[in-house]
């Protein structure tokens, strides 16, 4: 996190989008929008792609706060919970509210809670701030469990997600759900991408790199920090809705525990701080990779070991891989990816 302001390419004035640079991303969008929903099996969609999308979005949100603005937060899953429960209650209690509106309002609710818990950031830094966001984690979960109103007085505290219907169109097939999640993730990711290239994004980085210096050059530090908390909480709140409504289709407060917060933080760190694509790469590693590993393991070794032994060995392999990645490339997968691409380009232009 010590990128100097002057050398960071991100503070250069916004470049015009060249087709050559945009082509791979457009291709990726085409694959995600057109090819995957047609060709991926329901399992790949329901168990891999949808949680991948939800956690990627949460990681994009946390990356704005932690990667760009430098405010360490351990409360991500609390904001996800706020989003999921707000959307559920809005949907339940406000007759005729369109689903997309209740999702947006759920994001707003998460923003409000995020602002409240962002206030300590005006005084606290680093570990101390992390501890105060930890308070958000425990407080939100406690409130949701303590007051059964939030789960519509359901004795178990578990709620059923409403069907996904937008304008009479039901997204009830795996591909439908995937496209629903993908639409939201695409829109929010593009907005975040624009945000970090704007002046505000540069303010985020300025605050991260040196608060004192940022203040001196006229960056409104307090406002910038709160804005980072607000935007990040909004995005994470919407990710929570996706997690609850689109992926699990049921929500319980215990599902949004500290483990999930740490998982999102690891996604950001492993994927690469202060990159949007890092969030997706990190989510792929953390979400999809263990599942692929587990399937590969049970396919190859299933007849010799029971599932418990396999599970343990997967954890060891995954842990070792993460440590390896971080040693080889502490800047995260995004940097690894960038380096690989540059090398390939060099080789291509040499030959």
């Amino acid at each position, binding site marked *: 996190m010590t990128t100097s302001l002057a050398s960071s390419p991100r503070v250069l004035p916004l470049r015009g989008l060249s087709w050559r640079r945009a082509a791979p991303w457009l*291709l990726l969008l085409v694959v995600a929008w057109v090819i995957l929903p047609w060709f991926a099996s*329901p*399992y*790949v969609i329901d168990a891999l792609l949808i949680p991948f999308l939800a956690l990627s979005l949460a990681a994009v949100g946390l990356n704005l706060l932690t990667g760009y603005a430098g405010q360490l937060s351990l409360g991500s899953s609390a904001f996800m919970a706020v989003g999921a429960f707000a959307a559920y209650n809005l949907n339940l209690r406000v007759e005729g509210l369109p689903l997309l509106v209740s999702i947006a309002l759920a994001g707003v609710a998460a923003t409000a809670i995020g602002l409240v818990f962002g206030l300590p950031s005006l005084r606290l830094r680093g570990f101390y701030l992390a501890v105060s966001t930890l308070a958000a984690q425990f407080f939100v979960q406690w409130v949701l469990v303590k007051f059964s109103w939030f789960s519509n007085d359901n004795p178990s505290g578990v709620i*059923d997600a409403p069907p996904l219907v937008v304008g009479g169109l039901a997204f009830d097939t795996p591909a439908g759900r995937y496209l629903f999640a993908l639409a939201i993730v695409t829109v929010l990711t593009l907005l975040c991408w624009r945000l970090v290239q704007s002046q505000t994004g540069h303010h985020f980085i300025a605050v991260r790199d040196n608060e004192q210096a940022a203040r001196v050059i006229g960056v409104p530090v307090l406002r910038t920090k709160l804005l980072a908390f607000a935007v990040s909480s909004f995005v994470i709140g919407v990710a929570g809705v996706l997690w609850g409504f689109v992926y699990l289709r049921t929500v319980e407060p215990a599902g949004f525990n500290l483990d999930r917060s740490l998982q999102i933080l690891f996604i950001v760190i492993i994927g690469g701080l202060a990159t949007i694509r890092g969030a997706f790469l990190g989510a792929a590693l953390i979400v999809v990779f263990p599942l692929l590993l587990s*399937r590969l393991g*049970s396919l190859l070794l299933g007849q010799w070991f029971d599932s418990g032994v396999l599970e343990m060995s997967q954890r060891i392999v995954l842990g070792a891989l993460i440590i390896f990645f971080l040693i080889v490339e502490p800047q995260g997968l995004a940097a690894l990816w960038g380096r690989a691409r540059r090398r390939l380009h060099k080789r291509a232009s040499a030959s």
Partner: protein
Amino acid sequence: MLHAKLLKTFILSAALLSAGLQNAHADEQFFPLQSYRVGPYAAGGTGFFGGFIDYLNLVNLRDGGVGGVKLTWEEGETQYEVERGVEVYERLKQRPNIATWNPLSVGIAYALLDRVTADKVPLLTINHGRTDTTDGRVFKYIFPLLLNPYSETSGIVNYIASKEGGSDKLKGKKIVVLYHGSPYGKETIPIYKLLSEKYGFSLQQIEVPHPGNDQQAQWLAIRRAKPDYVVLRGWGVMNPVALKTAQKSGFPADHIIGNVWSNSEEDVIPAGDAAKGYVAITTVAAGAQYPVLQEIQKTVYGAGKGNLQDPKRIGSVYHNLGVLNGILNVEAIRIAQAKFGKRTLTGDEIRWGLENLNIDQARTAALGAKGLFHSIHVTWDNHEGDGLVAFQQWDGKQWNVVSDWIAPDWKLLRPIIEKSALAYAKEKNIKVRKSIDD
């Protein structure tokens, strides 16, 4: 182009992986097992799924399957976590010939309610689950077999009443319920409240956050409350910790009543002598002396196909419950085969079998399970099946049954269950069934 190539490889390998698992066999009935052998609840998971698999193995080895139809299964590790359970569901539901789902987790069961209903495959939650799924008119594919959480609560309160000398003696008594901080643990909160109002005992319900390996604060509160009884609605590591902490805070073990997920050897042995005298409710007796368990020992473990790593656990409560779960599954298939023919059945046909599952005392004996459990009679509108409960006491070495088989107060509970189920039907726009054919 690099991106496209990478993605193509990724899609291809994912497709290959899923295709590799889809080899269909004729005449088999497949059990997808959302088991857990890792994590804080591994003791319950290994025992239950071990028993379940042992029984399926016994039926295959001894009878060549059910009516000639081989029973097959595959495990997916959930660690008792909802999202892993969902992942395993999505993975294994691709397989053909699925019989039933048995996740042994309320959280996972909740997440599967809509999914199994859409896929028309039964979901079995033996001794646990969401209480109002007992109402088969609304929850066509969900079966909280033998004992739903409300029946369990009623059974425990009735037992305390009998120890006090009648339900009128409950007035003025104080009961603390120490419950596991999970959907499973919270399921009975309203029904304890209702029973305390009905019988006039005072009630305090205290939550132990998952997984429950520190309970100083809770037992301090119990010490202050000075209750006559503590009901332990625990799960996994929470139970021995509760018993040990109770001993430290001076609460007598014989006034702690364990619920149906706090009644195993794995709950009391780690607590040592702190567990001596502890009483727990059960639907399935402990012990390996029952003929069906003898056969498992001889046929399955004799052939080296036993699932438990430690054969000493044969006949433990969780293992026996797994065996019983196997019996109920297999009998439902047998009953459905009698109607639809001896072939691979669809999930919906097995649902019909479950809704006609009637194992009386004579049939229990024929299955070699006399005394292992009492009886079950499931109907299309009662998916619990009127299971009876007994109480057992731990003497430091083994469980001894200290009561007869007794019935919970179903008449009291049924209207509450129906109300809740109908509210669910309204919320979800489900048509209430009028008969088994609906």
